[in-house]
């Protein structure tokens, strides 16, 4: 038991990449997040991080991630300083990220950072004494999104293992979907990748899944893929990935999720999306029991509460 307690000491730990964590550690975070749900809803309150200050540094806007981090800190009794986009900050005047981090380090007990450059959070962690939480670095990692996705599947399906999970959309450029494929493989989920041919999952990610004992299947046919699926994870296909509007419209049209398509799926199929969505999911799906994406967005709060409490060192 003592060994367990020592191993699960997250105080001062940076949250940079999902790959920095073992399955046991992820389980521990998800269990703790479950305890946080009623606090995240405001039904209960405990001053877990009273007197603590979080720096929330968003060098590019990301409304959902920022608001859920800030809500998480406030729900725990802590306070937030920072900025939501870099215009008007000294960064705009040419200050390095390293210097901004040094400053935030001396003003706060933890730093959340979102930055357009890949590897920015890893760099931030080098210059900060306090723990750094990566809220997305360019096309790079986004570990809290990955954790909340895992949390959502576990909450809705009781477990992650053995679920048939379809990852749909832009599987090539979206690195968050790469981390998710890795993490789901770690848990032994069955994976199917559905994407247009030009946006296929890269081989290095498929190899990572294989190293974890998972043989993902690939298809471009969404109707077939969702027949026996338990989870359909939809990602956005970005216009800028296509040479012309016509090709883009054709692809987006082919992968649009609506009630007619979902008739092919199981009754308890859940549909997830990291949001914001544009046209990938028809709003008519919102009112069906399949739609989990708004719950998923809420889950960002208890998961981030669990992380903040663990790394800053407050107890529920």
């Amino acid at each position, binding site marked *: 038991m003592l060994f367990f307690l020592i191993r699960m000491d997250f105080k001062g730990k940076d949250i940079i*990449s999902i790959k920095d964590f073992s399955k046991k550690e992820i389980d521990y975070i998800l269990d703790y997040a479950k305890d946080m749900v009623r606090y995240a809803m405001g039904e209960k309150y405990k001053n877990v991080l009273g007197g603590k200050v979080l720096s929330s540094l968003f060098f590019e806007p990301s409304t959902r991630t920022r608001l859920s981090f800030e809500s998480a800190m406030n729900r725990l009794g802590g306070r937030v300083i920072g900025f939501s986009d870099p215009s008007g900050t000294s960064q705009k005047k*040419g200050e*390095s*990220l*390293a210097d901004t981090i040094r400053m935030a380090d001396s003003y706060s007990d933890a730093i959340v950072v979102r*930055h*357009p*450059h*890949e*590897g*920015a959070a*890893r*760099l931030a962690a*080098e210059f900060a004494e306090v723990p750094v939480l990566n809220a997305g*670095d*360019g*096309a*790079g990692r986004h570990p809290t999104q990955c954790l909340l996705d895992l949390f959502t599947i576990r909450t809705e399906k009781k477990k992650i293992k053995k679920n048939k999970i379809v990852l749909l959309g832009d599987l090539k450029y979206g690195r968050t979907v790469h981390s998710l494929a890795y993490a789901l493989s770690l848990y032994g989920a069955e994976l199917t990748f559905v994407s247009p041919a030009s946006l296929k999952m890269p081989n290095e990610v498929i190899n990572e899944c294989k190293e974890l004992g998972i043989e993902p299947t690939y298809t471009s046919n969404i109707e077939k893929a969702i027949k026996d699926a338990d989870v359909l994870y939809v990602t956005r296909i970005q216009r800028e990935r296509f040479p012309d509007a016509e090709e883009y419209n054709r692809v987006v049209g082919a992968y649009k999720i609506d009630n007619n398509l979902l008739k092919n799926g199981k009754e308890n199929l859940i549909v997830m999306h990291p949001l914001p969505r544009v046209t990938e999911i028809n709003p008519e799906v919102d009112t069906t029991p399949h739609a989990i994406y708004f719950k998923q967005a809420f889950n960002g709060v208890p998961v981030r509460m669990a992380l903040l409490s663990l790394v800053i060192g407050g107890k529920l």
Partner: protein
Amino acid sequence: MKKELKIPRIKDGTVIDHITAGNAVKVLHILGIPKSSSSTVSVAMNVKSKLGKKDIVKVENRELDPHEVNKIALIAPKASINFIRDYAVTKKHKVKLPDEIIGIVSCSNPTCVSNAKEPVKSRFIVISKDPPRIKCYYCEREPEDIADKII
């Protein structure tokens, strides 16, 4: 003139042998030679050997630090280092790539934070020693052509 006289034997110093053909100049660049020393340096390129063509570098009157020389394993994984005293090889070992490569290779990812104006040196984790494969510590990308990315 006999073949072996193309590059003269040295009395004292260091010989780096079995450098991947064509990479001798890059090897010197990595080692900061001749800038960091006033020693005589001779370079032989495309020397025929049993294992095909190779490059050789000889640095007179100076024993290079093996830790320094190990960095060249990035572009010359088969190279060996020979220390020479009084025309005889006193020590010989193969280069061994260190676990981390700092400040020698730049990241090929233009949006990597290590390519932004930040006060850090490039940093790579070695994921395979031979053939050399490295991964950026910051963005986790692998450069396709390491030699091309030597700073």
